[in-house]
């Protein structure tokens, strides 16, 4: 990256806006600086990135193999030649949007995506912000005994309820489709930073494994409220051709659907990740 590149944190906890970089043309030095900023801030934002689908995919591939979304084929507006592209689109016909609650992308997969890169080309006149929350900060804010308890537990993340509801609202028949479900540790250690992060979310996490439902519901209910505290968050206001690049291993995000019937549309590339540990 050239010397003109600047990284401006949005909050002390999470998020930074990166300027002076063209995501379609990054050299190796630039990429390693980008990667460091990504690990430091968990979410990066870029403006004015009018990049092609191919460049978008190429950017993702520098981080790792691309992920094919288990629900990608539920939508007619998919980019058919690019299964690695997930179309994010809402308009006046939309009955439910993607990401309209706090979640980590596809945490129902056994090896959930490490990161997602979203470029929006069309935005409503107002609204459609995305909120990101640091699961490092959410973990750090727990008491010692609570950290210990959570460290001993795993939880089940099930894609079925979430994706079936979303597809069903679009008239897609999912009766023959099986969606992934996986058990993951409630506290995961980030494979690159070594920091501990909470790894549950309202969209996918259905129950705590191996303990009575009442106990698990009490724990999850508390955690879902805890992780949504404003002090762990940043909020990104999009412009056309803004790009957000987030680390699914240590963040949750929530896309505001406050712009109906306006259009918000773009492409997401998702990079495969490891099994959470």
């Amino acid at each position, binding site marked *: 990256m050239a010397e003109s590149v600047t990284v401006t944190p949005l909050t002390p906890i999470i998020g930074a806006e990166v300027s002076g970089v063209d995501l379609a043309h990054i050299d190796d030095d630039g990429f390693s600086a980008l990667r460091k900023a990504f690990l430091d801030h968990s979410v990066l934002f870029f403006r004015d990135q009018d990049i092609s689908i191919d460049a978008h995919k190429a950017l993702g591939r520098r981080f790792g193999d691309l992920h094919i979304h288990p629900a990608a084929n539920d939508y007619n507006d998919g980019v058919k030649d690019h299964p690695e592209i997930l179309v994010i689109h809402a308009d006046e016909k939309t009955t439910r949007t993607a990401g309209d609650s706090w979640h980590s992308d596809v945490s129902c997969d056994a090896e959930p995506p490490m990161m997602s890169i979203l470029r929006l080309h069309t935005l409503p006149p107002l609204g459609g912000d995305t909120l990101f929350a640091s699961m490092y900060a959410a973990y750090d*804010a*727990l*008491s*010692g*005994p*609570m950290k*210990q*308890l959570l460290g*001993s*537990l795993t939880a089940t993340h099930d894609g079925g309820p979430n994706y079936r509801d979303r597809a069903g609202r679009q008239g897609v028949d999912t009766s023959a489709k099986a969606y992934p479900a996986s058990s993951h540790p409630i506290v995961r250690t980030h494979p690159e930073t070594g920091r501990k992060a909470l790894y549950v979310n309202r969209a996918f996490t259905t129950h705590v494994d*191996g*303990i*009575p439902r*009442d*106990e698990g519901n*009490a724990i999850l*209910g*508390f955690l879902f*409220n*805890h992780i949504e505290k404003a002090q762990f968050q940043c909020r990104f206001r999009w412009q056309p051709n803004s790009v957000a690049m987030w680390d699914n291993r240590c963040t949750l995000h929530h896309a505001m659907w406050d712009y109906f019937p306006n259009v918000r549309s773009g492409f997401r590339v998702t990079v495969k990740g490891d099994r959470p540990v």
Partner: protein
Amino acid sequence: MNDMSTGYAILDVRRTSPNIGAEVRGVDLANGLTADEFAEVERAFHENQVLFFKDQSRIAPDVQVEIGKMFGPLHFHPAAPHLEGYPPVFVIHAHKESKIANGEGWHTDVSCDTEPPLGTMLQMHILPSAGGDTMFASMYGAYDTLSPAMQSFLEGLTASHESEHIYRGRYSDRGVDDSDKVYPSAVHPVVRTHPATGRKALYVNAGFTMRINELSKAESRNLLDFLFRHMEEQLMVTRFRWSENDVALWDNRCVQHRALWDYWPEERKGHRVTIKGDRPFFKP
């Protein structure tokens, strides 16, 4: 008949539920207890957590005090007025004019004390035509039905028990002026080991327990809310329907109770003697 009912030479002990409670016949407490009788009563008490003595005569206050003393030194309530001439005797009384009744929510007696009562012996003298039952919940059962992960989490924790919010002004209608009084508070383990049986019991209650000390406020509130719901599970509860002069003797170290005030404006009255206990501890 079940195994817990056998082996008694004097008493007839019949369990009222699989997890807690037994009806006891074969002694009239109004006559006091012999050493042999006391030994069987104490055994039944440890085995069943709460005993209901049936077919009793009215116990004179000094006899009730003497029976209480067989279990240990008596406890003097920090707030409630006592029977004239008998400081250890706490009069339980609700009637048409009452604004509150004792023990309406789930609690263990006076857990705000550093050394909370071991047990409580209550004889009811006047009962409403219907209602006024008391429910007893096993805190052994509450502990045993938690997952091992939750059990070990709780075993490392302590909780603050306070009483100011309960007792301040509570007995003003009985002429108690408490303006100079400081009401007790104490820190106890969330799981306590019963000193006689060695069993582990959950020891937080909605009446006195304000927070778990090692956790953040939100964590504590959430966990206590869960535990207060959990301990109400009816599988671990026995419900006692009183007859006149019945005596209930409950172990505050492993039981919570709740007296239903569903009989207003009718009257319900009785005498309670409370036995002092040890400081709660946890032994892994």
